[in-house]
């Protein structure tokens, strides 16, 4: 299927033509912050940097009921866990940035392997079509080009949209993407000119990301050498060990599962958890293998830049979105930390 053109003035028609089969989510401003919300017309943002929180909550909500059960002993099905409604409705998410889409690819490898696939993650992944929006003007804090990604990167997307000014170029990338574009209204075939313009925008955007991060040395050095480097003694000092970086990060994925019982019913709930918490590695015996801030801060960066590449065929556990840089209360800058790791 060829590339298509969607005029911005036809956005409403495009969205409405999908509503019969899909819920459509797009970037919307709420209280000064941009986040994905359901839309029913063309009233959404195309001119924004990135969503405030990463969109990982689309597939991995912060708090999610996994199972429910009854605790009523008279009930013959008491204490039998029943899956709590894992039936996501089909949806199209419009405006995902390539870094976030790439993050979903990385998480696919973590939530699934040859022995197990997390049904809660994958049911939502399968039901969702991702139409990405290339970044014509990357944020000053972006460094996606340094971590196997880029402002127009296609991995993880079903369609890539490029903002050409008063229209969007839509490039189908997968079967799912093609299906949506075939169903949608308001599209016309793109000509070569549009394709060339998109290519020029891509080149410009990649050039605009001047602050680079190098990970070649990290890839070559041993785990112990990186682990015992001296700079870790300084990085952790200002860290508050709050969970902000882990919660806004599109590739952070750790969680805690707990049963919450209310009278005669109970729910098994999965919540985001953070390796920044002392409780994260606390053993029942009282021993904590990561007893202090240094161990925890070191672990987070080692995990993202060394352990994940080692265990997941070279995938880096960071997509350069820059959210942690913007939101860390004490301005711990991942780019500086990685520079020290790579030094």
């Amino acid at each position, binding site marked *: 299927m060829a590339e298509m053109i969607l005029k911005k003035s036809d956005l409403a028609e495009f969205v409405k033509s999908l509503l019969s089969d899909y819920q459509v989510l797009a970037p919307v401003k709420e209280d000064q912050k941009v986040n994905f919300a359901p839309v029913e017309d063309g009233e959404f943002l195309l001119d924004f940097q990135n969503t405030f929180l990463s969109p990982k909550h689309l597939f991995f*909500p912060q708090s*999610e*009921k996994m199972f429910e059960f009854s605790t009523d002993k008279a009930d013959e099905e008491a204490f039998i866990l029943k899956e709590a409604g894992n039936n996501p409705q089909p949806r199209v998410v419009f405006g995902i940035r390539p870094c976030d889409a790439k993050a979903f690819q990385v998480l696919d490898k973590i939530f699934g392997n040859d022995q197990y696939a997390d049904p809660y993650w994958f049911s939502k992944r399968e039901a969702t079509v991702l139409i990405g929006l290339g970044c014509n003007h990357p944020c000053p804090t972006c460094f996606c080009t340094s971590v196997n990604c880029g402002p127009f990167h296609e991995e993880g997307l079903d369609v890539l949209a490029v903002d050409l000014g008063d229209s969007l170029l839509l490039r189908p990338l997968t079967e799912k993407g093609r299906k949506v574009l075939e169903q949608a209204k308001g599209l016309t075939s793109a000509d070569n000119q549009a394709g060339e313009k998109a290519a020029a925008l891509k080149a410009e955007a990649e050039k605009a990301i001047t602050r680079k991060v190098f990970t070649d040395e990290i890839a070559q050095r041993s785990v112990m050498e990186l682990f015992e480097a001296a700079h870790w003694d300084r990085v952790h000092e200002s860290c508050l060990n709050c969970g902000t970086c882990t919660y806004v990060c599109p590739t952070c994925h750790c969680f805690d599962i707990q049963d919450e019982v*209310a009278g005669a019913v109970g*729910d098994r709930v999965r919540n985001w958890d953070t390796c920044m918490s002392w409780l994260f590695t606390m053993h029942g015996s009282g021993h904590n293998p990561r007893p202090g801030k240094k161990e925890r801060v070191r672990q987070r960066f080692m995990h993202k830049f060394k352990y994940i590449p080692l265990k997941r065929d070279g995938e880096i556990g960071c997509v350069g979105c820059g959210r942690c840089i913007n939101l860390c209360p004490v301005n711990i800058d991942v780019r500086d930390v990685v520079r020290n790791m790579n030094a």
Partner: protein
Amino acid sequence: MTEEQRKTEEFEPKIIAFLCNWCSYGAADLAGVSRLQYPSNIRVIRIPCTGRMSPKFILEAFRRGADGVWVSGCHPGDCHFIAGNYYARRKFTLLNNLLHSVGLEPGRLHFSWVSSAEGEKFATVAKQVIEAVKAAGPNSRFVKSRVEVA
């Protein structure tokens, strides 16, 4: 019968009463031995002293579905542990104001000083507390019923 009347008529509140072992629990005991009548909505939790009270207990009681909470201890100056209730008084004042400021309805949270000789007072205050909680209706604002997430 109005809707209002029917609501208060049918509704039997659950009230958790934290009573200090030395004074208020003794008063409750005396009220019982003296066969003084008061409605049976109070569920007593005996604590060694009101100084032991923590805001966590009061919040937990509401979270678990209590419609009202009543804390009672020795009169200031008569605390079995000398000053426990003095410290408690400051904590109660601050917590009482905080919870009401964030929308706890009036009539749900009560504090009293009842000595072990005041069986009559215990029954009287119990009736006042139960009336007030009945008027406030079932607790819906600070209860944690079933976890509300995706």
